[in-house]
């Protein structure tokens, strides 16, 4: 279902339950068709940067949106965000932070690092739509037929 070259959304989330709930919610509105789920920052970096085509050339997989959990093992959300925003190739990808609480002090840190928005888990479509609106990615929604 997920085609390698057509990644719209990259979900970085270590908690399987949270991931399932998020994907379910997005699916309801057919927003998860081109979604890829990785378990931590390390996997995310591998997914984005460490790809080769048939000829052995490196191939970037550039998602149109990254949904990023903050607290993860190995490379956490903040560290990943820092790396993405430092790299010219990825620094323009919009990042929406998934957080447990809107009181989380890490949100401030993420905004400083260049995060575009945040959504409090569990993810509801309404709050997701709000975030999308905030970062102006109408086209993601427009590309997806709600039917």
């Amino acid at each position, binding site marked *: 279902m997920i085609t390698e070259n057509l990644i719209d959304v990259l979900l970085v989330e270590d908690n399987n*339950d949270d991931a399932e709930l998020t994907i379910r919610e997005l699916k309801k509105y057919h927003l998860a068709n081109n979604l890829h789920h990785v378990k931590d920052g390390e996997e995310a970096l591998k997914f984005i940067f460490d790809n080769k085509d048939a000829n052995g050339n490196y191939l970037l997989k550039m998602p149109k949106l990254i949904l990023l959990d903050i607290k993860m093992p190995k490379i956490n959300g903040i560290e990943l965000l820092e790396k993405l925003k430092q790299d010219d190739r990825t620094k323009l990808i919009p990042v929406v932070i998934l957080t*447990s609480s809107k009181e989380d002090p890490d949100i401030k840190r993420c905004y400083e690092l260049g995060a575009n928005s945040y959504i409090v888990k569990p993810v509801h479509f309404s709050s997701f739509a709000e975030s999308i609106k905030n970062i102006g990615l109408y086209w993601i929604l427009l590309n997806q037929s709600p039917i």
Partner: protein
Amino acid sequence: MLTGFNKKILLLFIILTTGVILAGIATYKTQQNVKDTEAWVTRTDKVITETKEVITSLKDIVLAARGFVITGNSLFIKPLHTTKTKLYTHLQNLNNLTADNSTQTAKIDSLKKLIIIRSNFSDSVIQLRKEKGFAIAKKKFSTINGEHYLEEILQLHNEIITTENDLLTTRKLANTKSYQYFILSFYLLLAGILLLLTIAVFIVWQNNLIRNKIETQLMEYKSFFNNNNDLCIVANNNGYFETVNQQLETTLGYTQKEITATPFITFLHSDDVAASMERYKNYQVAHKNKPTTINRYRKKDGSYVWIEWRSIPNTITGKIYAIGRNITERKQIDEILQNTLKDLANYKYALNESSIIAITDANGNMQHVNDNFCTISKFNREELIGQNMRIVNSGYHNKEFFSHLWHTILKGEIWKGEIRDYTKDKSIFWVYTVIVPLQDDTHTTQQYIAIMTDFTARKEAEFQLDYLNKELQSFSYSVSHDLRAPLRGIMGFTSILEEEYAAKLDDEAKRITHVIKNNATRMGILIDDLLAFSRLGRQPVSKRIFSTNTLVKEIIEEQTRENTHNSIEWQIQTLPPSFGDISLMRQVWINLISNAIKYSGNNNHPTIEIGSFRQNNKWVFFIRDNGVGFDEKYKEKLFKVFQRLHASNEFEGTGIGLAIVAKIITNHGGEVWAEGAINKGATFYFTIPDNQN
């Protein structure tokens, strides 16, 4: 008292007076002598005269007899009787005059006999003439008998005269001599008197000179006494001041009369009476032991002056001459000095007790260390004195730390900081250190004093606290993330159950899923509030002035937009600006206003009043509602975490809102309190300090 000079004068006087008296006596005596010799001369003259008279009278008788004989005329013999009487009188006189001269007396007796014989011869001749006539008488007359007697008489007469003339010469010589003596003694007397007078005049003149000199001196002394800036007195032995000078009058405010009329004890301060009187009574001894004394005299206005007396006794009269000086000011300065010294000693004592002290020379070599320093460093004093302060250096601080320290104190400024030092056995101690450079008059640092406070325990606690804080932070993090994750699972999957398996659930199952979700939501809120509360303590407060009016208006708009309750009547006064952390103060107002809305919700006509008033130089803000209120006896619990005065099914809430309010206000240095009664509404008050405070 006689001086040597006076003694000599007196002796001279006595000698002179004696001389004068003697001269007087001599004069008197010589004068008597002159008189006597003169008397003798006179008598001798008389004897001669009388003798001549006798001869004259005799010759008269002889002539009368001859005349009668020749003439027979009785006229010749008529004065005979008178002449005879005269003769005898002169004879008698002669006898009297020569009674003391036996030779002359004998001669005069002989003369007398011869004269009587001759006189009787003349009488017999006269008788013959009368009776027998001229011839017979002539015959008789012609005998030489008569002439013989006369011859003898004249002879005798001449002898007497010669003797008397000799006597006269002798006596006149004696008289002249005694007169000369008289003159001599008289001149002596005069000279003596003159000398005496001269001396007397000289003495009077001298005395006058001395007197004038003494009077001048006396005037000087008097003026010295009276115009002296010190207090001069003469005290007698009856306990009175006899004489006092003007300065004492001025100092005490009494007149001389008032002072001398009262025993001086009455002016003494009651505390000084015993000592002063003791001294006065045993003055001679006391004076020798200590020539000065200090006591207090009462002035007319009732206040006291301190006087330092310096006195000398007069050994003859027993009076005391004293000079006093008003030392009240000095005494006051003394007192201040004493108090200051005492304070200093106390401070020193307290400092020694409370602090660790080391005094070093300009190079940091220790000159003095107190017991506390020895105790904490575990060195004994002998091991420390003369050593550099480096002896306790633990090597913990870097080079810059100490160069900054030296840089500061070399400029003469005070350095303050925390230093980690080593004890003798290389265990660590921390001292909060204040190093004060002690400079001399030329602003050259001679010494440094290091005042240290041991805070090793606190430092350890700080490390502990830091560790705990970090632990708490990670705990909070866990709470916010990990605790919430299972909650999300519960929520999310319950929602899936509701939404995707709705057809398979009966009504009771749906109610249960609803309860599950409610509880999970409540727990989420609880976690959020708790996190917010715990974060408050760590969050720095950044204060600025902001408009309370604007803030309150914004919050009311936000709150009423979400609010579905009855329409509320708002009574909002104009509020003064606040000085605080706006985001924290926003939380305060949100919590108080939302509480007011929430708890007045049951009232049909909810009214909320917001205002302020001035109290104890601070603005007090208040928010009052007419809601359910609370029981005053539980008001202490209002501001505590998780303390609720209403059941959660009555009013929503976690019991953290007011605890957050209290914490923020306390962090701002303000106060918060509440008034209320059940079903009579509640009023919450708080103050935060002004900008100036």
